[in-house]
């Protein structure tokens, strides 16, 4: 007599054997005491397992140790997807605002001389500083998200990110020093904006990577 594969007996006992195979197997079981006994043993095992308690209390209360490791969370958690979306939205809003500021600065009719620069008037600088604060806020939010999620990144990835951020930060510092020395023109603002955008884009990609991993 050819016995069915053991897998079929397990699946039959589990109730997962394909319906088409059931009549064949049951036909065999009618004439085979050994396989009937095997199925009986499997069913008794499954019944025993089903009676095992689902819950077992640990030998001691773990709450105190757990609580001491809970970081106090603000009401709006930076790891929350909605907060993440807000951060990305903030970055997107900043991009739109900044683009319009730059566009206005570039397309407004004016003489192609140093008058294009910040010495055209304090209002342009004020407007830019406001935009810069918005960039700083969006960047800070993304950095906060990254801080929470950075442990999920490979160490070599973290090194690469930090190296890139250092390069971008150096370029931002240089542009800001130029502006502080009153020798900046619109092109410096455009360049500075581009560096902020580079930083935002890098942070966006990294936080996406870290929060998805």
């Amino acid at each position, binding site marked *: 007599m050819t016995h069915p594969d053991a897998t079929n007996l397990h699946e039959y006992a589990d109730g997962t054997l394909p319906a088409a195979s059931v009549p064949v197997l049951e036909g065999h079981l009618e004439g085979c005491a050994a396989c009937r006994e095997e199925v009986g043993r499997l069913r008794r095992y499954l019944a025993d*397992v089903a009676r095992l308690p*689902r819950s077992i*209390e*640990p030998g*001691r209360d*773990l709450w105190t140790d757990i609580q001491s*490791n*809970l970081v106090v969370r603000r009401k709006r*958690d930076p*790891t929350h997807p909605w907060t993440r979306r807000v951060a990305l939205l903030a970055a997107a809003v900043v991009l739109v605002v900044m683009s319009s500021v730059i566009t206005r600065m570039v397309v407004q009719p004016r003489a192609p001389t140093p008058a294009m620069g910040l010495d055209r008037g304090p209002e342009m600088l004020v407007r830019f500083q406001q935009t810069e604060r918005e960039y700083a806020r969006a960047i800070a939010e993304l950095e906060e998200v990254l801080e929470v999620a950075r442990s999920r990144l490979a160490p070599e990835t973290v090194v690469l990110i930090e190296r890139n951020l250092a390069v971008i930060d150096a370029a931002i510092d240089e542009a800001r020093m130029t502006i502080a020395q009153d020798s900046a023109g619109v092109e410096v603002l455009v360049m500075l904006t581009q560096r902020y955008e580079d930083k935002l884009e890098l942070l966006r990609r990294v936080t996406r990577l870290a929060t998805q991993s």
Partner: protein
Amino acid sequence: MNPLVSRAQDGDQAAFEQLYRAHVGRVYALCLRMTADPSRAEELTQDVFVRTWRRLGSFRGRSAFSSWLYRLTVNVVLGALRTERRRDRRVTLAADLDELEVAAPAPAGGTALDLEAGIRALPPRARTVLVLHDIEGYTHDEVGKLMDIAPGTAKAQLHRARTLLRGWLER
């Protein structure tokens, strides 16, 4: 969504403690059965709840909180077991630690106690598959995904685990 979960998401530790009290038994049982080591199970249970607190923000309420928590538990334990296996491999240079496992002696006692002891005595991977499928009710496909193995492999491991367990119980 469960109001306790919402409050915990807002940073309410008292609400989180209530969630802990409601679920710690189930989480610990899962950790204990998968690791067969009570002190390791306690460490992992703590780890699970600390991670749960950190990740609560990503819980969207699409499934029951308990399902989300138990799946997180399985992932935490599997991650720890993988790390331990890698570390042990480096130390022992063993090709397959499962084959090196030494079964614990069978204790005298009732069926449930025998069964628990038998599960503890199984090789780690066989034990994991058996706990996930036969006790926690995951399908072969789900077990395969969780353990990063093919569903057919999960099925074969389960049948091997049941055979080993029965052999252990009958000796």
